[in-house]
């Protein structure tokens, strides 16, 4: 069980949106995490490399800074089946780059642009993820 947090989630979501708007205003780019992270790898050593690196360092620093400022630990429950987590990582990395985006690039920025491609992509990854959780929790695990 996790607690339903409508207000915290709405406010946190608004911050994610604010970040996407700031990135568009400053860099003129979509805040797609898979696009930004994927271009940290070759052959993308262009002049925007420092920008992407800065964004990712900010992402990584966020929970640590949050803990430091609020004194509250960031609670998370991460799967402990390491081969499964590694396999999931491979799928997420491959699928997001091949599909040109993830939850942020398609799900937030794409839908906000009213892009049909992003709407289709978001529907597909949501439905497949829901089906996957149904199978692992209620067919295999149930």
């Amino acid at each position, binding site marked *: 069980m996790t607690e339903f947090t*409508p207000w915290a989630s709405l406010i946190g979501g608004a911050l994610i949106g*604010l970040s996407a708007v700031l990135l568009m205003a400053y860099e003129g780019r979509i805040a797609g995490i898979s696009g930004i992270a994927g271009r940290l790898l070759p052959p993308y050593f262009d002049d925007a490399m420092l920008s992407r690196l800065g964004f990712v360092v900010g992402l990584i620093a966020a929970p640590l800074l949050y803990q430091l400022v609020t004194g509250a630990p960031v609670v998370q429950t991460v799967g402990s089946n390491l081969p499964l987590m590694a396999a999931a990582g491979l799928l997420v990395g491959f699928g997001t780059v091949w599909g040109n985006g993830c939850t942020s690039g398609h799900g937030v920025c794409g839908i906000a642009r009213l892009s049909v491609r992003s709407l289709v992509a978001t529907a597909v990854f949501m439905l497949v993820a829901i089906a996957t959780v149904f199978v692992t929790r209620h067919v295999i695990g149930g």
Partner: protein
Amino acid sequence: MRFLVNLAIGLVFGVGLVISGMSDPAKVLNFLDLAGTWDPSLAFVMAGAVAVTFVGYRLVWRRPTPIAATRFEVPTRTDIDAGIIVGPAIFGLGWGLSGFCPGPALTAIGLAAPGTLAFVPAMFVGMWAARAAGAWPAPARA
């Protein structure tokens, strides 16, 4: 300077993930678990993020150019090809297995859960493999 501005923007994104609860894969998996311990929070994150981005993008696009770049790099493709189905489907499978999409996975690095440390390197391998597998669909500058 550009590095630091992007770091600050990434920090806002990461703090948004933490406050919204999306840094916790358990909360994401519970959103996807419609038949079980459903937690609707993720829908509120998406609503907050899309609303702010929708309005913010339209304000920002009134400027002739971004602050630090010569033009806005916004995806222009509108075709629905196999790539926009298959990529997100592969991503959705990995997302449903782990509860991690790229943003929360990167944000989790510093908290150093073993599952995260198995997931993130594999995600980068997957991203690299998707590029190596050939440009299908052609990598967009997102």
